[in-house]
Structures are given as C-alpha cells and as structure tokens.
C-alpha cells in the first residue's frame, strides 16, 4: 500500500475517463481486498474481478 499505487490507479482511471487506452486492467484482488493495476503480460490472480467495465460505465449524475 502506497501513494504510488494510489496514483497508478488514479492515472489509469483518468486515462479511461479520457478514452485513452493503456492496455492495463484494473482488478479487484479478493486476497488483499484492494484494487490492483495489471499491466500487459502480468499475471492476474484467477479469482480477481476485472473492474474496467464498472469504471467505464460511469457514475450516476446529480439527481
């Protein structure tokens, strides 16, 4: 856990928000309970859930 990991996730979210493809995946690792950035070629925990789509679907707007 570190600011660097936080910034890596933030940079990935911002890139996706601006439709800039990075080839990375954001996954939820149930072992650590944290979001993890998985770069191309890196192995994922088989139990991990990819959250790319959850982020890209967008968040509700003000009602």
């Amino acid at each position, binding site marked *: *856990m*570190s*600011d660097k*990991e*936080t*910034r890596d*996730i*933030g940079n990935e*979210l*911002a890139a*996706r*928000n601006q439709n800039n493809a990075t080839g990375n995946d*954001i996954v*939820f690792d*149930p072992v*650590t*309970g*944290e*979001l993890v950035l998985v770069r191309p070629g890196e192995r994922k925990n088989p*139990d991990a*859930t990819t*959250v790319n789509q*959850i*982020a*890209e*679907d*967008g*968040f*509700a*707007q*003000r*009602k």
Partner: protein
Amino acid sequence: MNAARLNIEKEILEKYFPRRHAFVHPTDPSRSYLDVGLKTNSGRAYRLKIIIPPDYPSAMPLVYIVFPNRLLDYRGKNLAAMGADGSMHVLPPNDGGCIQLCHFSSSLWHPGLTLYKVALKCLVWLEAYHNHLLTGKDIDYYLRHCH
C-alpha cells in the same frame, strides 16, 4: 429481498469480501442493509452502509459512508456540506451527515447487478477520492458520468 436472492448475494460476498461484510436485518425489508468494509491502496479503511430497498433487486440500493463519519476534500471542506455535487460524484448526505455516493445510474440499474458490484463501484470511488486528496483534482477527473 427474497431468500433465494439473499443466498446468492451472501455466496458472492463470502467469496470476495470474506469477513468484511454483514447483512443487518436481512429479513426485514424496512430496515435491511449491508455493512461492508473496504480498504484503499493507501491503507485507509472505510465502512459502507448499503441500504437494500424493499423491492431490491428491481430497485437500486443507496450507499452511505458511515466510517469515517466525516470526509474532507483536498481543501479541508466537509464533503457532506456540499450536498449533491456532480463534480465529486456525491448525493445528499443522510440525517447523520454521512455522505452518499453516486454509483450506478438508476436508468442503467437492472436486477442482474449485485451488492458485490455496488461495493466494487464504491471502491473505485474511494480510490478516485484518494487521488483527489493527493492532486486536488475533482473526482470527475477520474470517474466519468453516466450518459
């Protein structure tokens, strides 16, 4: 929520959030909620209260952050005091001053979505919030709005 759906939700949450969640009043539709603990990459712990509406899963749950009970923005302002704020993806707080998170849009909500997916979406919000604390950029710099 009927018993069959409750069992499905429990099974998924037990797999992905073991020992980090609890259903409260699961058989009382008027008081039912999910208490779930989340942790960010920066090591901060949060507790969410996911209120399960009587007609769940047809209706979408509401999500409040109950711990910490006061979240500050980059400038030190209480997020709850902002009320509904699109740039920060928050909705009006509850009577206790706990902020309410935007997650799925009600227009996109469908019964196939689960409480696990709602919790994951809120974890994404929390990571965006921590980046806001580091950079000062609004949360909608990191998280897009539903269209």
